[in-house]
């Protein structure tokens, strides 16, 4: 039988160390909403989402109550809209119309984000893909809850540099369109390489075409729990350190597994995956940077950071796969800057640069995330940064992403403020040398060879 110390440990994790279920994301296929008439598409989308997700928020609350564990976000991901709108959309305004429908429907069912205003163009773009991408700045400016992502490359296909070049312009334009809100639009726009079909975390969530009609994916998080566990093993060997992280990751993932099973039963929707990611929030004590410090770094960015992060990421995965047979999504450690108080402090202290963050993304999940750059950063430079990050993903067979925020009207040292879970970010310096001639080349970077690894 459960004993009192186990009960106290669990409740301490929840109450003091910010253990939570970060998100229940209901993935919904919209493939059956396709029509040649855009109004009909919108009507179909609305009907389908309300039918599938009508009970999502209520179910989430019920589970919260039953186990007294917070479920921070209830969200929806849908089939990439470039596919759904392809037959109906003739101009960017048509895609914006679909975005508005998604936004209104998200508000109606009470979810705080809906992901999937996306295009998958890792090898080439259809006319509809390009139209959707060009509609992103307007779509993100006129909606509140829609999240957008574009997959520009993969290990199997190489990098679609035409899309990367275009995305540099789109990121800039999105920033300009939402300049009055500290370029907030860019916080809802992710550029991917090797995007997973089942990621429950925004802004990059979409419901892959390989998925079932509807599926529940759950993201659990708890950087604070790992940090507290590590406090007890200060100065111990790497073996003890790794063992502690694994054990903690196991416990956290099991909670996610329980919630996922429960939500799946109550909603009558199959369970997809658990994404165990150490996803920080701006709340004090909910920071991945603090874990890195606890491992032994004065600040994230100090020499040794990449090794410490590699270790952390791997142990999190190892603990997670033992706890659930269906670990998926991005599982690992997230290192967004604006959403992590410790990362923000490291940037402000001058310890962490864009280049070091890029190195760190080689060994952790995702990539350059929630990083504010000066407002006068050129589109081609943004494309260059995206291409670098995509190349890391392509060569290392991992998911990488870029979520940059060109802070319009701001320069290095200024601050952008998004509020809520998105936090605030100091504007970081970007290497000022140009890469236009590289970015302006047409075509693709070929897929890498999978032999001769060194």
């Amino acid at each position: 039988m459960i004993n009192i110390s186990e009960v106290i440990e669990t409740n301490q994790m929840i109450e003091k160390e910010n253990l939570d279920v970060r998100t229940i994301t209901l993935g919904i296929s919209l493939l059956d909403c396709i029509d040649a008439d855009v109004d009909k598409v919108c009507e179909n989308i609305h009907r389908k989402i309300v039918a599938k997700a009508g009970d999502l928020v209520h179910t989430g609350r019920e589970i919260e109550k039953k186990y007294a564990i917070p479920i921070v976000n209830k969200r929806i991901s849908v089939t990439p809209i470039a596919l759904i709108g392809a037959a109906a959309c003739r101009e960017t305004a048509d895609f914006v119309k679909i975005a508005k429908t998604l936004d209104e429907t998200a508000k109606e069912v009470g979810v705080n984000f809906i992901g999937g205003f996306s295009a998958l163009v890792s090898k080439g773009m259809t006319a509809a893909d390009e139209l959707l991408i060009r509609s992103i700045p307007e779509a993100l400016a006129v909606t509140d809850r829609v999240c957008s992502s574009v997959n520009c490359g993969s290990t199997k296909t190489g990098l679609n540099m035409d899309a990367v070049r275009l995305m540099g312009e789109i990121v800039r334009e999105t920033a300009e369109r939402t300049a009055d809100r500290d370029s907030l639009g860019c916080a809802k726009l992710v550029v991917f390489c090797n995007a997973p079909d089942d990621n429950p975390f925004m802004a990059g969530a979409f419901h892959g075409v390989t998925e079932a009609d509807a599926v529940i994916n759950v993201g659990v998080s708890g950087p604070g729990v790992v940090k507290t566990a590590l406090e007890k093993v200060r100065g111990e060997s790497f073996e003890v350190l790794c063992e502690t992280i694994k054990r903690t990751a196991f416990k956290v993932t099991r909670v996610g597994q329980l919630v996922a099973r429960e939500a799946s039963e109550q909603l009558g929707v199959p369970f997809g995956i658990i994404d165990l990611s150490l996803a920080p929030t701006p709340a004090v004590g909910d920071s991945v940077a603090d874990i890195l410090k606890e491992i032994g770094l004065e600040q994230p960015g100090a020499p040794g950071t990449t090794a410490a992060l590699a270790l952390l990421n791997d142990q999190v995965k190892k603990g997670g796969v033992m706890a659930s047979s269906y670990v998926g999504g991005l599982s690992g450690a997230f290192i967004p800057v604006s959403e992590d108080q410790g990362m923000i402090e490291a940037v402000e202290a001058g310890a962490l640069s864009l280049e070091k963050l890029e190195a760190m993304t080689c060994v952790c999940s995702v990539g350059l995330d929630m990083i504010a750059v000066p407002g006068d950063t050129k589109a081609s430079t943004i494309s260059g940064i995206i291409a670098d990050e995509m190349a890391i993903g392509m060569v290392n067979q991992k998911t990488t992403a870029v979520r940059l925020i060109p802070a319009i009207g701001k320069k290095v040292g200024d601050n952008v403020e998004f509020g809520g879970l998105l936090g605030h970010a100091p504007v970081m310096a970007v290497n000022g040398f140009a890469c236009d001639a590289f970015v302006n080349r047409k075509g693709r970077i070929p897929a890498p060879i999978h032999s001769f690894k060194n």
Partner: protein
Amino acid sequence: MKKTIITVVGKDTVGIIAKVCTYLANNRINILDISQTIVDGFFNMMMIVDLSASDKEFDNVSDELEQIGQEIGVIVKCQREEIFDSMHRI
């Protein structure tokens, strides 16, 4: 049998257990196990109870116990046992 864990945390005072147990008895909720300890100077009690003979639903019991807790100045929390099982048992 679905078991529920009730935890009471707060400053130690006379009659905490009496209050909670009276409520449980009145609602035909059976106590299977009970233990208590002091952590960081705070009174911590845990009960494993069985609601199956009670007329009340989990939600009601949870709300009413929370209310009783507020009256005597402690935090009373009800949770289904599965969260602890899944976390601490392989």
